[in-house]
């Protein structure tokens, strides 16, 4: 985990080092490309809710780019005032905290629609890396990362609590499925699949875990949940602390090796999928020795191969789908969940826009762990609320627990009257 330097000189030194690391082969391309045309405002859900300059993606990116210019461009070193180059100072870093954590979820929608083709989210993440290196990650987010590192999961749930939850879930599942052979294995060796879950499933919303277990059982899958490092989330990714993110990834891979699994399947989690599937190997500096898939891809495979069958009549209400940014725009998994839902529900309707064009729900980027930005988070959810209302759906399916928390909150706030479910829950409900 990154140090938390108290000495201002050390803070700046670490921030500059992080800036240098973050731009190599990525950020610098984009920091040199922005033409500050100002056309990107409305692509951002936060700007739409609060249309002030500070929420303009270009303005947000410009703050980080100003520091890049100061240390990495000729004119920025010689005549900083001409090119808007700014020193990294403790005050500038404090200002960056609000910009990179409080005004941006890193959803990347602005980049998709940027007239130049600038990856604004990459620039913003470079900003998070700089701030994290300076030890200025907002408290709520920092504590969540610490929880993950100290206890193995972001909610500090003990192994005993996990086992006890799976035990009573198993009992319920046996009754529901009328099958005494149903099990939720934890930490068992020699299984084919290692299933990572969101601790939220253990603590507050066990229905999605129960549903996944029911589907795995029906499909005859050989699977287990890890005993120690079962957390699919990675808040090091959100905080910008790549050292912590790498450590969390390494632990899961180590447990997978110990258990001898052939494949890791990730529960429905947007940033968890992106972190583990795409960023993890790069944090570790090596390829994975086994396959990593989203449970959505596995569900589709079960349906395609006839390992499970579903009856859409069992889900008669209108269902729409929210696309988590990290799963779809950054993860490339956009179609399996649609094909699965079209089979498992009777009335599926798309939101507009959707897929890579979809708006962030407002809960991304670790926003839910930073209470200081709660009002802005809920306000920025208005865009998503309008999208949902326009569909007339009674159920919003979303393959992400962070998004689910935000969608539940905005459903109440904006009186949508919608239920929020994971895709696997709808599949489980439709099992025949």
């Amino acid at each position, binding site marked *: 985990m990154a140090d938390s330097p108290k000495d201002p000189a050390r803070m700046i030194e670490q921030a500059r080092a992080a800036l240098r690391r973050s731009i190599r082969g990525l950020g610098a391309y984009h920091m040199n490309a922005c033409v500050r045309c100002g056309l990107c405002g409305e692509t951002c859900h936060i700007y739409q809710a609060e249309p002030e300059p500070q929420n303009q993606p270009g303005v947000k990116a410009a703050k980080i780019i100003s520091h890049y210019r100061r240390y990495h461009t000729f004119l920025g070193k010689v005549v900083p005032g001409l090119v808007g180059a700014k020193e990294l100072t403790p005050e500038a870093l404090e200002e960056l905290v609000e910009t990179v954590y409080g005004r941006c979820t890193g959803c990347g929608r602005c980049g998709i629609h940027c007239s130049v083709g600038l990856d604004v989210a990459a620039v913003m993440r470079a900003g998070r890396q700089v701030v994290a290196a300076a030890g200025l990650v907002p408290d709520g987010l920092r504590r969540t990362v610490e929880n993950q590192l100290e206890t193995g999961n972001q909610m500090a749930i003990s192994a005993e609590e996990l086992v006890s939850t799976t035990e009573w879930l198993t009992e319920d599942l046996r009754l529901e499925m009328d099958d005494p052979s149903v099990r939720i294995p934890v930490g068992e060796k020699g299984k084919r699949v290692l299933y990572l879950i969101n601790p939220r499933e253990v603590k507050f919303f066990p229905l999605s875990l129960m549903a996944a277990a029911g589907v795995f059982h029906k499909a005859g899958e050989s699977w287990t949940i890890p005993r120690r490092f079962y957390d699919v989330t990675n808040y090091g990714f959100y905080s910008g602390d790549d050292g912590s993110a790498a450590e969390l990834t390494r632990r899961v891979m180590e447990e997978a090796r110990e258990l001898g699994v052939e494949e890791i399947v990730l529960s429905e989690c947007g940033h968890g999928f992106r972190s583990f599937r795409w960023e993890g190997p790069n944090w570790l500096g090596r390829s994975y020795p086994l396959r*990593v898939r989203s449970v959505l891809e596995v569900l589709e495979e079960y349906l395609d191969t006839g390992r499970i069958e579903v009856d859409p009549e069992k889900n008669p209400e209108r269902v729409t789908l929210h696309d988590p940014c990290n799963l779809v725009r950054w993860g490339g998994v956009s179609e399996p969940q649609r094909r699965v839902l079209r089979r498992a529900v009777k009335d599926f309707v798309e939101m507009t826009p959707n897929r890579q064009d979809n708006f962030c729900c407002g809960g991304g980027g670790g926003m839910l762990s930073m209470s200081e930005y709660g009002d802005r988070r809920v306000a920025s959810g208005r865009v998503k609320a309008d999208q949902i209302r326009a569909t007339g759906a009674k159920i919003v399916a979303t393959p992400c627990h962070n998004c689910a928390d935000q969608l539940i909150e905005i459903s109440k706030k904006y009186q949508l009257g919608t239920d929020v479910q994971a895709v696997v829950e709808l599949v489980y409900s439709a099992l025949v």
Partner: protein
Amino acid sequence: MALLIAVKVFAASAILWSVIALGVQVWQAWGGGRRDYSERAGSPARGVVYNFTVAMTPAHKETIRRHPFAFAIGLVMHVGVVLVLVSVVLLLAWPAAGGVVLRVGRPVVVLSLLAGAFLLVRRAVAGDLRAMNAPDDYLAVAVTCVLLLLASIPAMSSENPVVLLIYSGLLALYLPLGKLRHVVFFFVARADYGRRLGYRGVYPPADTGRG
């Protein structure tokens, strides 16, 4: 005649400097690159092609749909700039052809100049733009407008290119240092973005996502 040769040598040298300096900057930004250890799910090449073609169309670019006027104005300005830059290179290598391009393309250059002037004013008055713009951003548009102005005056371009060539040389010296470097980084950034999203199977997308 000697003056024209000297001016051409200066302009050509400045353009060469610009090309080398921009190349060095791209190389530095690359910094050895980053190997991607994740398992590929799509085609980086298809991602790049998509990002330079379909992704730039109004159907896939919300900024164009929301701001068609500002986008069109920007496009007009850049078309004129490209035309003048091509003319300048031709004036150095094949003066007769450069003169023809300037004469034929003059209406476009004038339109481009008007577009540039509009964009300069827009930058100065729009609150969001003022919040993100540094003096260099205004300077970049202003010096480009001067280039367009010179190219639109026959006596300073097609009839006697000395002034245009001197100015182009000066502009080429400045180009890699300030905001105008986006002339290269536009392509680099767009290619990088398309490559990464192509690698992950995000680009090209299965659907426009608009409904």
